[in-house]
């Protein structure tokens, strides 16, 4: 499989489908929906969102609330979320939190409200919440208008969108591309966790924040950097 370059890939998608809106409900069943599922690294999700921004793409982000890697309740996380929410739709997942607690609904509302309060411009945050992969699937299916109308893709299927697309997807179905940010950036969970652990023992937060801030500062140029 060819090496992935998110920036040129996004550009190709936009050109192929003649649109920049890849969010749920983009009103064109033939246009794929992009769903970025964020489990390990909120920073990498932010970087992905900025790459999309630089190409003018709008997508969906599903944020895992129970990550070991980041705390969605921390101020930095909320700040990142609010920035993603400026141009994209955000939903939340709870794969790694204890299901069935009514309290979490309240908590999700809180995270959403907080994210909105940071965003000065009107945003389109979806208030969806699911507890696991199957629920996520259900959510996507319902967003796209029923099981018959959706086909899910992972990163390894992506070439199919450009080659042999017709054979792969029925014309009546909406393709949904599921992106895992850590696969596109060198922020894979193992190294990232180890890094943050090492930092925790040494310089701690300052370093972690440095990484986040560095990402903010440079995100506009990421398209050139990810080669």
């Amino acid at each position, binding site marked *: *499989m060819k*090496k*992935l*370059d*998110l920036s040129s890939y996004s550009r190709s998608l936009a050109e192929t489908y003649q649109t920049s809106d890849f969010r749920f409900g983009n009103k064109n069943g033939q246009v794929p929906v992009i769903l970025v599922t964020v489990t*390990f690294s909120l920073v990498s999700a932010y970087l992905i969102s900025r790459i999309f921004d630089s190409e003018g793409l709008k997508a969906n982000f599903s944020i895992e609330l*129970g*990550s*070991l*890697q980041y*705390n*969605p*309740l*921390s*101020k930095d*996380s909320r700040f990142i979320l609010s920035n993603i929410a400026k141009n994209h739709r955000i939903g939340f997942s*709870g794969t*790694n*939190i*204890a299901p069935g*607690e009514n*309290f*979490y609904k*309240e*908590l999700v509302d*809180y995270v959403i409200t907080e994210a909105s309060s940071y965003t000065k411009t009107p945003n389109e945050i979806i208030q969806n919440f699911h507890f696991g992969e199957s629920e996520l699937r259900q959510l996507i299916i319902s967003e796209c208008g029923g099981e018959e109308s959706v086909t899910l893709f*992972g*990163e*390894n299927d992506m070439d199919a969108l450009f080659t042999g697309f017709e054979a792969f997807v029925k014309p009546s179905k909406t393709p949904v591309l599921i992106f*895992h940010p*850590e*696969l*596109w*950036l*060198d*922020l*894979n*969970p*193992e190294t990232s*966790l180890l890094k*943050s*652990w090492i930092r*925790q*023992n040494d310089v*701690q*937060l*300052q370093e*972690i*924040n440095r990484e986040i*801030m*560095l990402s*903010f*500062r*440079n995100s*506009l*140029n990421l398209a*050139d*950097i*990810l*080669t």
Partner: protein
Amino acid sequence: MNLSEFENLALSISEITGKKDFRISSENDKQFFMRHDVDSSIYGAAVFAESLNKLGIRSNFFIRTNANLYNPLNKNIQDQIRFIAENHNVGLHIESPHSFLSEELFNKEFQISIGLLNSILRRNIDCISWHRPHQLDLGGPDQILGLTNLYSKRFFKDFVYISDSGNKWSAERKSLLFETLLKKLPLQLLIHPEWWLESGFRASFEESIRPQFLEQFKDTQNKFTVDIPELNLEKLREAAVNNDQPLISIVISTIGRPNLRKLINDIFHDLYGINFEIVIVKDGEQIFDYEPSVEQKEKIKIIKNENRLGPSSSFQIGIDAAKGEFVRIFPDDDDWAFGFVESAFRDSKPGVILTGTFLIKDELGTGRRSVQKNLNVEGPLKSVYNNTVAWKRNPTFLALPAMLIPREIFDQVKFYPGLFNKEDIILLQEIWEKGFRFKTIDRNAMTGNVSLKRSSDRATLDEEFRFCEYINNTDPDLLKKYIYRNLARPHVAYVNFSWLTTVFRLSKKYGVKPNPYELINLSVYFFIGLSSPLLRMRSKLFKFKSFNFRK
């Protein structure tokens, strides 16, 4: 400091007090209790709890819900919290209302945090400790929204308070601890697990999280067979320097501060990836001379004044040589506050930013800084600065490094030459007079200052806002009078011809006439001091007055 040292400490305490229950309770109300604030590592706290369990000792752990480094929504983390709560008391560790923009925001965060902890523990928590408390929090009310406040007057002022905050645990603290225990005085002991647990924490990490995590990642990895593109850090850094980021100039005037190298290193560390330059103006003979390292040289410009011209002239020389779009000015007695520049640019393009004001004691010789307290604020405008932050604490204090100033302002405003003090507030007045306005930034974004300054001694956000508001909306005549009065009553060490000229210039410009006391003062300086050999003697006597290196 390690785990076994802590265990010995806990055992000794237990022997002296004859108790194994160190929890807060009505029984312990006026005796001894121990608490552990879990700032960054829940696994560290769990190791700590386990170790106390082995000793049969019960203690108090305070958990954060909004920490950057652990997520209380995660099942595994929740298990650790519940494990700790099996034998120990658990409470909430959260920033105080002074760290929030409004009481409403604090209440919201507070309620959600309590709800989350109660839900994890399936019982109601009943006490709270502040994370990085502000000075105003010390000795607060007994209860905060129904929870026992461990920084209340009862627990903070009436109890002896000993802590290892900032990783500082000394023989002195240990003896104070035992002395207090032997005297049976009420005592609150704060121990952070993170500081004592290097090896224990690592073991805990390796055993509990890593395998689980690798397993989790393996699944993800198996799903996809793609080449993962590398994030090229070198390119990232280059991009940061070459893109449209404005250049920030840090202008430092120094008579040879001993910790200049540390300041420069801090700047390089903090502004990594930011487009910046440093202009150092060596003002006259240097007490400790500084030469930059080879790697740092390309970003540093050094200018030498043959004779000592004073900070205001040196700043102006530095600013004239600076090429940045924004300027941050550093006198000899300020430390670098991490995150300030970042925060200023988070907003968008900054205007005149003023925030993060501290007062620190001048202890350059030891390289250690402490916050100056108990300043007696007196003066004709006491009621004015009572409502502001910097002046409230010291009428002459304004931290130049707390300002990030667009370079264009210096096309219109210059430092008055030759001044050794008050140059900052005069600059502020001049900037204000040209129609520029000040704003403050979210102090919580300044994350790195913990190791340098105690956040408890910083101005609250509310105070900072009020300060900016005050500066922006103040009665200009009042401010001018204030500045003039301060300038016209200098310490003898600061008197020189430039000072006298400035006093007269400002007197004319501001339309303020010296009162009889000041008139006598000025006349004496003018007729005796300035023209006699006493001046030279004065200058020798007071040359390094403000820098006591032998402390």
